[in-house]
């Protein structure tokens, strides 16, 4: 597995901090409430470990702990990754209600749940990825968002990544004023993509130090 030096790890956390700030602003505008987000913690782990970790963390929050809804988008460019936003399934309708407001009937709300979750994922993931692309001074081309419901194993498996792929797990705790909603963002990269990401981080560090 590719190792990051202390400086590279620090730079990556700082870049994600900026991305999370952008995502928090987007999320807040989306649900019309103040959103507090934790400082992201980043870990590179195997997909199986990521699924286990995710399952156990969400189990502590959700009423139906084994069911997660996820929105994924594939990005290509400076590095390739599958970005996945995940929430406990029982929070999905609540989020959509916050987004579209009280005027929409429950039937309409249920009908548009998947589509609305895709749009929420699209906005949050692009806020993170867009920040990364801007900081790296590169472009990342994204696919359309896809919606999935399943266990953490199934959700992290849907990205179609290779067995040697690692998950850059970015934990983000979304805390809304009136609603306690826990969400996670994960980036799945294979070894080659991880090398590309490391290269981008080092270019960023060189620019920051005035060496490029």
């Amino acid at each position, binding site marked *: 597995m590719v190792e990051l030096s202390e400086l590279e790890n620090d730079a990556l956390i700082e870049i994600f901090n900026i991305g999370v700030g952008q995502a928090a602003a*987007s999320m807040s505008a989306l649900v019309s409430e103040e959103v507090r987000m934790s400082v992201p913690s980043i870990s590179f782990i195997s997909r199986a470990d990521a699924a286990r970790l995710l399952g156990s963390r969400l189990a502590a929050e959700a009423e139906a702990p084994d069911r997660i809804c996820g929105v994924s988008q594939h990005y290509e460019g400076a590095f390739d990754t599958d970005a996945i936003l995940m929430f406990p399934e029982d929070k999905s309708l609540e989020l959509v209600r916050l987004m*579209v407001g009280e005027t929409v009937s429950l039937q309409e709300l249920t009908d*548009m749940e998947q589509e609305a979750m*895709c*749009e929420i994922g*699209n*906005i949050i993931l692009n*806020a993170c990825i867009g920040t990364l*692309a801007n900081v790296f001074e590169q472009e990342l081309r994204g696919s*359309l968002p896809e919606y999935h419901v399943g266990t953490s194993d199934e959700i992290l498996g849907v990205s179609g990544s290779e067995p040697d792929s690692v998950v850059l797990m970015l934990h983000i705790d979304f805390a809304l004023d009136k609603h306690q909603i826990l969400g996670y963002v994960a980036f799945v990269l294979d070894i080659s993509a991880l090398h590309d990401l490391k290269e981008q981080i080092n270019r960023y560090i060189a620019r920051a130090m005035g060496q490029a």
Partner: protein
Amino acid sequence: MTDVTPERTKTVLIVDDSRVSRMMARQYILHLQPGWNVVEAGTGEESLDKARAALPDLVLMDVNMPGMGGIAAAEQLRRLAPALPISLLTANVQSATRERAEALGLGFMEKPITEARIAQLLALAGG
């Protein structure tokens, strides 16, 4: 007696593959400008047909859509109606997208859609 020509009702064309986004944009537009018309298209291709029929005063264009993307559709609309105000309304906040919009003479507004952002966009059509 002075002839007063009634002002033509303004039309906004919303182009977005997300039904929820179209619904939210429509809701805010009609709240801010109850007398305006709102026309929707779910794809870039559809937006070209709708624009020919509705002759909109403003186009709000998503970028990432199936088939023809928003930027390609905006380029074609620009050829059809060079003076038509077109603004991207997108979750894609990358500098590359903003620069592309600027080079093509398109406005740029990031999602999520809020009433304040829609109000800024309607100002492009005199709203």
